[in-house]
């Protein structure tokens, strides 16, 4: 009986160690891309903060809107001033969960398809979002990759009629983050 207790304790301890294992980065890449008849709009943010709890599958993202870099300076200004209103809503955030986290083996190298569900907050508006992606485990680090589409209108971002040909109503978001174990 004592043996059973010992095993139970060991299992509990080891599992709580796994529960505690978190991965993070402060230099994640988030790009957005909008294809429109007149011009493509592309911006990249190389300073996304991301944390994944390998035990629970909980996942959070935060990006500073002003850290999105555009090819054209004026686009960047308009993005911040007129569309996402970065002074009022400085951050975009995602808080959610890898729904099939149990299928990811964080200790074995490999690529694992995942589904992520949670709440996206942009421009002060929070919406439920589901996205498919993959988690690549490689040498103790993990690489999270996902691509999904957001509708500008969902986040109460108004596109004035004079530029509606220039700006697509849907924006493709690509996430590529390399996370390191958090000590």
């Amino acid at each position, binding site marked *: 009986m004592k043996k059973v207790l010992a095993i139970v304790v060991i299992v509990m301890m080891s599992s709580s160690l796994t529960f505690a294992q978190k991965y993070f980065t*402060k230099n994640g890449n988030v790009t957005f891309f909008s294809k429109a008849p007149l011009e493509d709009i592309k911006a990249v943010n190389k300073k996304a903060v991301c944390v994944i709890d390998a035990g*629970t599958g*909980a996942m959070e993202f935060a990006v500073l809107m002003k850290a999105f870099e555009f090819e054209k*300076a004026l686009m960047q200004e308009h993005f911040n001033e007129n569309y996402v209103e970065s002074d009022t809503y400085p951050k975009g955030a995602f808080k959610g969960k890898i729904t099939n986290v149990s299928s990811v083996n964080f200790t074995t190298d490999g690529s694992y398809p995942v589904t992520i569900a949670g709440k996206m907050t942009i421009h002060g508006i929070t919406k439920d979002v589901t996205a498919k992606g993959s988690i690549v485990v490689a040498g103790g680090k993990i690489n999270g990759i996902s691509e999904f589409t957001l509708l500008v209108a969902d986040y109460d971002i108004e596109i004035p009629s004079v530029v509606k040909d220039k700006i697509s109503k849907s924006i493709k978001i690509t996430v590529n983050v390399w996370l390191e174990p958090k000590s």
Partner: protein
Amino acid sequence: MNSRLSIVIIALLICPLTNILRAQETSLLDEVKDSVVETQYVTAAFKSTRVIDGQSIEMLGKGSLDFRILHRFGPISGGVDNLFGLDQSYVRFGFDYAPVNDLLVGIGRSSTKKEIDGFVKFRLLQQSRGATVLPFSLVLVAGAVVNTLPFNDPTIPNYFTSRLNYFFQPLIGSKLTDAISVQLSPTFLHRNLVALSTDPNDIFALGIGGRIKITSRIAFMVEYFHPFNGLVKGVNQDPLSIGFDIETGGHVFQLHLTNASGLNERAFLTDTFNKWAKGEIQFGFNISRVFQL
């Protein structure tokens, strides 16, 4: 299995669960909060690089080319005979280019006195928040205006330098809130040639400009200059302009009412004779189209 042991096991099972529950209440991001706050520069204090007539503390992004068309009609007091001033026009075409982020160079030509003007504008300090807090921006402007009209008196020796005028401005401005920006534009103007020997070559003026954003794309603008010396009291007037900036994608339309028809610093500071009180107000607009090169 005795009951005591099962209690222990159940307790052990519950412990990590409560841990998880507790962990979910707080944000995971709290654990990686950056201890170092980055400096955030304040951008877009004004929609355009000009308040109305004068330079604003705003710059252009690297590689931007701004094609500017400035237009002033005649005074509204001209009445229906002159279609409230629309029969007359003063125009300046110009190009501004930003080779790097904090530098802007520009050249333009005004129809009045056929003046060609050029300027260099450099941002020395940019308003910022975060790690470095600076409540204002400081921008230096240096420019020259060349009059290309034939000389008044061809019988006397005339020099090219007589055509030249220079101006210098340290612009100090701040985006006080998301909607409200103000700036001071102390201006030093030097004219190489003046009409009378008693006229001073150097003129000092102070400008004040401001904007109130009404929507994210429309702003109310005001600009006023007061020259302190050198101009004839009662004849020369202080330029005062009010208007709206309307932004549509790559264009900024600045529509305004003003008593100044001059379209460069020399012209609006020393050649403004119209009086607001007499209805000698002119409708005008600036069109700015920015291209990325």
